[in-house]
């Protein structure tokens, strides 16, 4: 169980990245959704013991992550958003190095673990390959492999699928869902909504340093049933529609614009048809609502 209480962080520049976050996350894959600059990476860095919060508490299984960093690091697997590896080391050497840093002192155990990890992330045949020659997807999979060393209780993956091709993304999703063991929290930070809908049992939406929603993808979709409407409009009509209805998204399609509208009071007008809601509708409706409140 990951418990976050009153977590706040303001950077020296005056940017208030987190404004008292409260979250309780049970084991499984948890999705943290938010637009760029919402505070996701700041939250991830604090959880990964790399950044000091101004106030608040983080605990995993009762262990205080803010004041007992070295104990926390034993329970942690971290895959940052933007990370590198030593290009001259091979995949095997890299994992072996991280295993030693994580305290796997027995050489035989280490060899078995690195071998299994490489197989798990489908890099078994590239084990002797220098990491510098890896593709983005392979590098990302090696990154998740190092995060899995030492049976971590909290695995943090920050924007892991950004820049991956569809096949690699799929592969990565399967890996993540596979590693969410009974007592492990996998915290997935992303701005790609489909990542959350594919993977996560629970989710939260963060915006401007605040949690604006906490739900499960299933409950979120239920909330959106019968309130999402869609029509095809000419480009010049979009501004009018935006002024009349709660437009949550627009998408160019075959020379026209497909407009999705949120309406709890039934069909907005005769041109609109009811559609099956997606998690993106939930996300955009919340973010737009928060924008309009501001």
């Amino acid at each position, binding site marked *: 169980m990951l418990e976050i209480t009153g977590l706040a962080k303001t950077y020296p520049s005056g940017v208030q990245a987190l404004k008292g976050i409260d979250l309780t996350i049970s084991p499984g894959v948890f999705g943290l959704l938010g637009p760029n600059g919402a505070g996701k990476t700041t939250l991830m*860095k604090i959880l*990964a*013991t*790399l950044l*000091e919060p101004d106030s608040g508490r983080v605990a995993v299984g009762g262990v205080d992550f803010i*004041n007992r*960093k*070295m104990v926390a*690091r*034993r329970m*942690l697997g*971290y*895959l*940052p958003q*933007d*990370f*590198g*590896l*030593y*290009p*001259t*080391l091979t995949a095997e*050497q890299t994992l072996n*190095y*991280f*295993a*030693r*840093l*994580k*305290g*796997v*002192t*027995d050489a035989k*155990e*280490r060899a*078995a*673990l690195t071998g*299994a990890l490489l197989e*798990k992330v*489908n890099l078994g*045949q*590239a084990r002797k*390959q*220098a990491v*510098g*020659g*890896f*593709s983005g*997807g*392979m590098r990302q999979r090696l*990154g998740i492999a*190092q995060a*899995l060393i*030492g*049976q971590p209780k909290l695995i943090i993956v920050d924007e892991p699928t950004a820049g991956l091709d569809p096949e690699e993304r*799929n*592969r990565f999703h*399967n*890996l993540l869902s*596979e590693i969410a063991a009974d007592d492990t929290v996998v915290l997935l930070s992303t701005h790609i909504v489909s990542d959350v809908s594919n993977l996560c049992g629970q989710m939260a939406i963060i915006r401007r340093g605040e949690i604006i929603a906490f739900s499960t993808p299933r409950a979120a979709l239920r909330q959106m049933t019968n309130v999402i409407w869609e029509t095809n409009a000419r480009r010049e009509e979009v501004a009018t529609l935006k002024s009349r209805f709660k437009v949550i998204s627009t998408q160019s399609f075959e020379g026209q614009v497909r407009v999705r509208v949120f309406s709890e009071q039934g069909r907005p007008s005769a041109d609109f048809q009811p559609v099956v809601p997606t998690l993106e509708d939930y996300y955009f409706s919340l973010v737009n609502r928060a924008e309009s409140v501001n």
Partner: protein
Amino acid sequence: MNALVSQPFVAVFRTEVLFNLKRVAPYALMILFSGNALLWWGWGPAITRGWAVNSDFYIIRLFCGFSFLTLPLFIAVLMGDPVIRDFRTGVDPLIFSKPVSRAEYLLGKFFGNFFVLICCQACFALTLLVLQGFAKPGMIVLSTRLWPYFQHFFFFIVVSSLLFGVVCFTVGTLTRNVKIVYALAVSFYVVYIAWQTSIKGLPVRWRIVLDPLLFNIAALSFEGRRAEWLNQVSISYDSDMIINRVVMLAVSLLCLTLLYFRFSTTERAKADDLASSQMSLLNLAPPFERLYHAPEFSHAPESSEPVAERTAETVALPQVAQVTKGLRAQLTQFAAALGVEFRLLLAERSLAAIAPLVMFLCAFELAVYEVAPEATYSAAYARRTVDALLLFLFGIAMFYTGESIHRDRETRIEPVLWSTPAPNFALLFSKFAATLLLSLSLITLVGLAAVAVQTYKGHAPFRLQDYLATYALILVPSVIFMVAAAIVLNVLLRDKYLTYAVSLALGGAFYYLAGQGYHHPLYNPILYQRWTPFDLVGGGSNLSLILIHRVYCLALSVLLLALALLFFERKSTGGLSDGSRLSSKGWTLLTATTSLLVAVLTGFIINSRA
């Protein structure tokens, strides 16, 4: 010729100059060359031999020496990789998809970097020119002169540099492997000396025509002349010298033409085809410069199963024991980090050039100059290598420690490393130990080279204990101090280039002050000019003071390391105690205090006895 004035040429040229303006290398070279000029002006042979420091003869002598010593390596640094850089960073398709011809691109690249090189080298000539206005006691200075500096600079340095610049540029561009360029630069000395030896029997005329650096011109033309005559002689270029320079220009042009015809802007499909057909290739390029192709990830469908089903195949991870508490576990983590750090240092490209160069220069000095016995021959040889090595070890401590400390951030592996349960000392001191290990390896290699030269010259008896005493008492503690100082500077300043600048300034100030006689042991941790071989192996009275000073030096080093650990950016513990025991921060503070006390105590003793 049109390429030289066309817009794309100017754009490429300008970009290269701008790029170099943002690099540290040109500025470092300018400082180094100016320092070199200052050194040769004030501490060269001019005063003792009665040569005027701004006579034609002396200017040419300095320029030829400058070319010989600095030309190959520094030209390789600037001229070896301009095109390789484009391919490495992946900007090449963006450039070659524009209407830029091969000639415009290559000439823009070459002349942009060559211009920067010449500007750097001009610092040497300009410093000498400015120094005419100053004179040390006993120094002869003729009336102020301007033209000879420009004339000889162009004739002796620019033309020689052009040839070597073209060679480095051509080799680097065609092979797309900068290691080959560095290897070429390092092997230059061997090839050049062998060439000089082979043409020694030829008439003077041919020796001038066939000498690419005109290195021997001063010795060949003015050998045995009196200082008064040399100071007054006005040197004009004879036909042999002009032929030599014309040949150099012609060879440069030939190389550029060859490059133009051989250079290809396309990917090397041939090499890739060969690689994919499972043939073994000798490829010196580091793997990340090659195009990676893994058969298991090819775009061809591997099986008809959907991806999700295939990758869902579960691989059970074995249960492993994790030990991160206790000294033994932490030393294991330190050893792991040290192993990787040392391996990464050995993979530094510059090392392939620097290590052989250091060995060559140290051995060259011992081989060429007479070594008089000081206490013993072995002690004298060891002392000579210590003097030569100190400067290089300072450079290694400064540059490689900086590389090591900032590498994790530059490669963006830092957040991953810092989230592991490795203690701060393992992450920080592994970098210290790796640089130290590198320096010790170099000391060992130079020591072995010195032993080889001593044996070759028949200066018996060979006494291993004299080498060991000299290196263990003088070099090793000094290196420990220099690396520790570099570590703490990098941690405190947090910027690699700022640290380089501060280190260079501190080193330069120390060297200058020591030259002025300010080398009291209290502020001279490397004991520069404060010992002789007699003190170490000849029963001199200074041995006990030297030993105390070494304890002082080591205490200062420990203090610096403790400070580095205290100010290390990665935070792990808050308080001084962890329950009933001292925390790592508490231990660090205790160590810092103890080492400070030892330094103060030994400092008092040194001050009272020095």
